[in-house]
């Protein structure tokens, strides 16, 4: 099939499937409504309603069903025994799109159904449409999953599109599991008979507890199936690295850190005798803060360990997600530390100028400052140190990396804007007082925020400006004439391509020669890599083919006809 024909077939099949399953869903909802929910003794207008539902359901099923069957069979006939059709990107997009949508729909509907079961199977609360949706979406998912897994994923596009279903679903399951756990523990904690001054209290077994358990069960099942079964052994995948570093590790870390700051803030506030204006008991926040920290650490720790275990099997070029994660965590740590420091300077300025501040103000400021510093500083030190080590060993690729450039320019830019705004305010306050002949009137108070941020911004600017200039001196921002370099070699580990990329500063396309063993090529000495790079750079053509033959790499400049 050509692409247009394929696109037409799959689009029409998808639309007719939508009509068909909506019709089936209507009939199933009708069935459940009559058999489970309806009691003609207490229901008014049921007959009319069901006639309408039956008419619409039958019409959609009778028209959509045969049409879907006809188009689907036509597609299947063309696919049968044809690996090119089986691995076609459009087919895999169709299958994985249906899998993703039907799985999420079925999980959401299932959570409502489980909640209804837990709440005591009250007929009045039963949702016939919800149960029908769960069953129909579940069947659609099951059928397409059987088909997708049985025919395999013979092309690179097929494997990539499968990943776009597997990893989002694994993340969805993990988030549901985590949120369900935190919600359940919090509900249990807030229902403990230890909180005084409670006028009225609900029961533990309420709709939040029921929906939390439903989320835990469904989230755990979804995560297990997609992460431990479907994503198992899928090491050579960029999306897996994105899942690790940008979703689960960063997500878990940010969750744990945010709640740790809140926990420390409330702890120091208690130590310093500050006040929290809230109707709930003082320590009831532990019910959500502690489980959120523990769940965040568990997600962070597990995925970080797993990513480190797999690091040896991952191609070097797929590690850009790891680099982004390091810079992301470093900027988070730095931002948190800078905010904590700035607040701390604020307290010192207040103390130094003996200004009258509202009662309990400094306790609140000190508590939040210490919380921010205790979380942010170790985080920044750890990740910035990791970045320095990467830069030492990574060479030009690390200096040139987009994430590093963005990190440095964001910090330098933000510091300059902050400094400018602070200086404008300080000079304005000073000049105004001088011109009005009243230089002492409350200057420190008016310029306090500017002074405290100015000190931090100046330090940040000075340090990161040095780093930026050092990178520029190393050639991190010099314009490189990029060439289209293709490597035809038995380089399955990606080591050779990664070493060339490090020296060249841009990507090298890799092709594998058919019929080779897949055994790693013996490591080339650094001098030979340098020679290859200099040959590539001095070649007259912008297109270069590197061919590995008998353990030797030949540089072949070429041009297209």
């Amino acid at each position, binding site marked *: 099939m050509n692409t247009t024909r394929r696109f037409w077939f799959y689009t029409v099949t998808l639309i007719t499937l939508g*009509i068909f399953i909506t019709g089936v869903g209507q009939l199933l909802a009708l069935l459940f409504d009559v058999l489970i929910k309806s009691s*003609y003794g207490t*229901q008014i207008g049921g007959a009319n309603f069901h006639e309408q539902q039956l008419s619409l359901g039958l019409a959609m099923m009778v028209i959509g069903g045969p049409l879907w069957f006809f188009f689907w069979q036509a597609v299947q006939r063309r696919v049968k025994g044809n690996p090119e059709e089986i691995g076609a990107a459009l087919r895999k997009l169709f299958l994985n799109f249906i899998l993703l949508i039907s799985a999420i729909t079925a999980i959401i509907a299932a959570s409502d159904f489980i909640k209804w079961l837990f709440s005591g199977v009250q007929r009045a609360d039963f949702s016939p449409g919800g149960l029908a949706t769960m069953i129909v979406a579940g069947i659609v998912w099951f059928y397409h999953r059987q088909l997708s897994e049985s025919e395999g994923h013979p092309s690179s596009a097929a494997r990539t599109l499968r990943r776009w279903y597997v990893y989002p679903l694994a993340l969805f399951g993990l988030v549901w599991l985590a949120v369900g756990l935190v919600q359940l523990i919090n509900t249990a904690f807030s229902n403990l008979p230890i909180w005084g001054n409670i006028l009225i209290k609900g029961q533990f077994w309420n709709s939040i507890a029921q929906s939390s358990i439903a989320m835990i069960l469904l989230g755990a099942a979804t995560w297990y199936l997609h992460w431990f079964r479907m994503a198992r052994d899928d090491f050579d995948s960029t999306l897996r690295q994105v899942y690790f570093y940008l979703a689960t590790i960063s997500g878990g870390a940010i969750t744990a850190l945010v709640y740790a700051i809140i926990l420390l803030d409330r702890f120091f506030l208690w130590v310093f005798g500050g006040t929290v204006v809230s109707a709930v008991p003082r320590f009831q926040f532990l019910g959500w803060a502690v489980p959120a920290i523990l769940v965040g650490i568990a997600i962070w720790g597990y995925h970080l360990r797993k990513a480190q275990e797999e690091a040896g099997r991952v191609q070097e070029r797929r590690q850009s997600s790891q680099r982004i994660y390091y810079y992301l965590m470093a900027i988070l740590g730095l931002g948190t530390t800078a905010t904590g420091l700035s607040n701390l300077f604020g307290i010192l300025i207040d103390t130094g100028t003996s200004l009258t501040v509202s009662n309990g103000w400094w306790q609140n400021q000190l508590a939040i400052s210490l919380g921010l510093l205790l979380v942010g500083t170790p985080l920044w030190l750890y990740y910035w140190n990791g970045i320095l080590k990467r830069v030492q060993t990574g060479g030009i690729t690390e200096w040139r990396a987009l994430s590093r450039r963005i990190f440095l320019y964001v910090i330098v830019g933000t510091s300059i804007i902050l400094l400018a705004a602070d200086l404008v305010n300080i000079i304005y306050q000073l000049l105004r007082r001088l011109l009005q002949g009243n230089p002492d009137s409350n200057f420190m108070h008016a310029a306090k925020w500017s002074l405290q941020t100015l000190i931090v911004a100046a330090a940040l600017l000075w340090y990161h400006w040095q780093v930026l200039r050092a990178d520029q001196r190393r050639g991190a921002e010099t314009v490189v004439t990029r060439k289209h370099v293709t490597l035809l070699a038995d380089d399955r580990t990606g080591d050779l391509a990664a070493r060339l990329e490090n020296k060249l500063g841009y990507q090298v396309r890799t092709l594998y020669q058919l019929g080779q063993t897949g055994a790693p090529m013996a490591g080339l000495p650094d001098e030979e890599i340098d020679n290859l790079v200099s040959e590539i750079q001095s070649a007259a053509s912008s297109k270069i083919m590197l061919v590995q033959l008998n353990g030797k790499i030949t540089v072949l400049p070429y041009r297209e006809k």
Partner: protein
Amino acid sequence: MNSSRRWLGIFTAVIGILAIVAVLLVLFTNGRKVTLLDENTPQGTVQRYLIELKDTNYAKAYAYLLFSPSDKISTYNDWLTSNVSPYSYNQTTWKATLGKVTQDGNNATVDVMVDTFRPGGIFSNSQYSQQIVFILTKTGNSWFITSPTYLYWMF
């Protein structure tokens, strides 16, 4: 026969049975009359009020309502003109399922789940569910609905 074809066959058979059962259920349960509850109970009053609305007997439905002076409705015509539009009354199909009844002396509440059927295209949700709490008060031997006295929920 491969696995996916076998499943397709099973699903087709199940869907065929589903369609037949659905048709039979609607045909055989259609003629059943609603069992009337005791009129002198809160649920019986709400049931009769809803039946009259279903049958568009608005004058009879109005007799089950009790208005407070703040409602500014003193006659049947006031209520009818403020609730029933000649263009909208027959455009939706709805069913109501009586739920929990709570009685406290001369006051009561009756939970009613109203499902409205509004087909709007092949990919839109054709059903809309809402829970309405009817508040009733007892005057003499009869119960009267004091809220909601408007009918917007059924359109």
